[in-house]
């Protein structure tokens, strides 16, 4: 078989399957860790940014002993129902330091027909709302009529554009973009639809709240504070309005995002450290394997020199071998990581219990290129030492070595 200088690097790799496999394995692990880690970190940051955008209120006032439930509702908790009455909510809205206030009602649905999840039903007031509307506006610019619904990204909407809840089909006017938060498992109705929902629940299951509260139940008052006030000051002002308001629950969405951001930053820092350590170790292993093989191959290269190959040609062979290993290992590593990260995206998000939102395709393509390029560069850098060592001695002396 005739082998020219272009085919020689490939033949060298083929004829030494064990060495090639060992080098490939190292590069695959490094590229897998780099690509997998970067995708995870990016998705967590995308989810966090989305969560910060969605929790757009300074203060959330909820009934007594429900602050934790309300926090869970904003992050990763299960659907829940709690409420106070509208007159209390109206009084809260009048407190000193309140710039904007809007009321929301939360109802937890039952798991309905097959393959339906328990949903969080959120009743909001489109006239005063400043939290949901900016997000809704991206998908729906009309007015949410009575009886209509807006569905979160993960909600199962049937082919005819409805959701079956409490034995009744509710028309869905728009499905919202994914946020990576619990809001993706929610449906939104306007406040005036809440009594109809309560009535429907009474017909098929345990009534979600007593009928007399249906028209006046408010679960939370979301507040944006006026300039010069802090959320804590406004909370104190609200407590001072009435003696019974002392027991109200106060949730500070800014605090929740700060806590989540801290856990996320810790996780990303550990992930970065892990990948960095792995890459340093990988680089050492690669350099060690390449330089060991350089010793083995001294005679092989000396023979090539005697046959007329220049040092440049030998360097090209080594460079091509390492680049092929880097490229193949890089592509394989990215493929293996993709096979786990993309299909299991929802499971990863659920297990991490942090906002997790898939990054856009352009960013993913960029990361693929970066991971493969890094693998190629590392392999080539690993082989530089070999090139230097093989370039030093004279061919004749190397061939005579050991005689």
């Amino acid at each position, binding site marked *: 078989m005739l082998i020219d200088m272009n085919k020689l690097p490939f033949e060298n790799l083929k004829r030494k399957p064990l060495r090639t496999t060992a080098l490939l394995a190292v590069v695959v692990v490094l590229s897998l860790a780099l690509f997998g880690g970067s995708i995870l970190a990016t998705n967590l940051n995308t989810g966090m940014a989305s969560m910060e955008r969605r929790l757009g209120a300074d203060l959330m006032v909820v009934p007594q002993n429900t602050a934790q439930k309300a926090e869970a509702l904003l992050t990763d908790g299960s659907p829940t129902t709690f409420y106070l009455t509208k007159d209390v909510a109206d009084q809260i809205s009048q407190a000193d330091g309140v710039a904007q206030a809007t009321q929301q009602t939360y109802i937890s649905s039952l798991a309905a027909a*097959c*393959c*339906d999840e328990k949903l969080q039903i959120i009743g909001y007031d489109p006239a005063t709302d400043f939290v949901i509307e900016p997000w809704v506006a991206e998908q729906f610019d009309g007015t949410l009529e009575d009886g209509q619904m807006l569905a979160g990204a*993960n909600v*199962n909407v049937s082919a005819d554009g409805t959701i079956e809840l409490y034995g009744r089909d509710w028309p869905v006017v728009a499905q919202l973009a994914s946020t990576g938060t619990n809001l993706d498992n929610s449906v939104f109705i306007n406040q005036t639809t809440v009594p109809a929902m309560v009535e429907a629940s009474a017909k098929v299951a345990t009534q979600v709240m007593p009928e007399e509260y249906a028209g006046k139940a408010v679960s939370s008052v979301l507040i944006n504070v006026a300039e010069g006030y802090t959320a804590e000051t406004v909370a104190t002002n609200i407590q001072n309005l009435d003696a019974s308001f002392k027991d109200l629950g106060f949730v500070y969405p800014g605090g929740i995002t700060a806590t989540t951001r801290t856990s996320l930053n810790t996780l990303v820092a550990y992930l970065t450290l892990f990948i960095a350590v792995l890459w340093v170790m990988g680089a050492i292993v690669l350099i060690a394997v390449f330089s060991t093989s350089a010793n083995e191959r001294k005679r092989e290269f000396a023979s090539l020199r005697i046959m007329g190959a220049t040092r440049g040609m030998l360097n090209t062979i080594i460079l091509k071998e390492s680049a092929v290993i880097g490229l193949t290992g890089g592509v394989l590593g990215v493929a293996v990581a993709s*096979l*786990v990260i993309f299909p*299991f995206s*929802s*499971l990863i998000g659920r297990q991490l219990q942090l906002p997790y939102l898939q990054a856009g395709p352009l960013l993913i393509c960029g990361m693929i290129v970066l991971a493969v390029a890094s693998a190629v560069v590392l392999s080539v850098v690993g082989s530089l030492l070999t090139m230097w060592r093989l370039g030093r001695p004279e061919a004749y002396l190397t061939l005579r070595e050991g005689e």
Partner: protein
Amino acid sequence: MTKKLFAAVPTIVLGALIAIAPQTFAHACQGHDVPGACHYSQQAATGIGIVILLLGVIALFVEAKVRIGLNIAAALNAILLIAVPTVLIGVCSGAMMHCRAVMLPTLIVLGVLTIVFAGIAVWLDSRPAKRS
């Protein structure tokens, strides 16, 4: 011998996983009164997994040419496996439901791995034997 093992063992292991996973950790959604799409996908996947496993076992006892055919059959079954929860039968639509979050990706990953290993086995078996 190496080629035979490479043509048979991954197919046996992956076939067994495809048969077992939907009945154990990657199960369909539970607690429904009426079985839904995820339940039927689960049953179909188990059936396909058993077929792939049997193809792998047969590959242990036959010559290279037949193994090529068996691995092509395993790859086609793997395509069918991927098509069952994605196109032919489907799974629950809720993104957080267990069958969508765990069963669907597990079957896709196992299907892709079966196709890759069957492809490599076909390539190995179709190469001329080395002359000593």
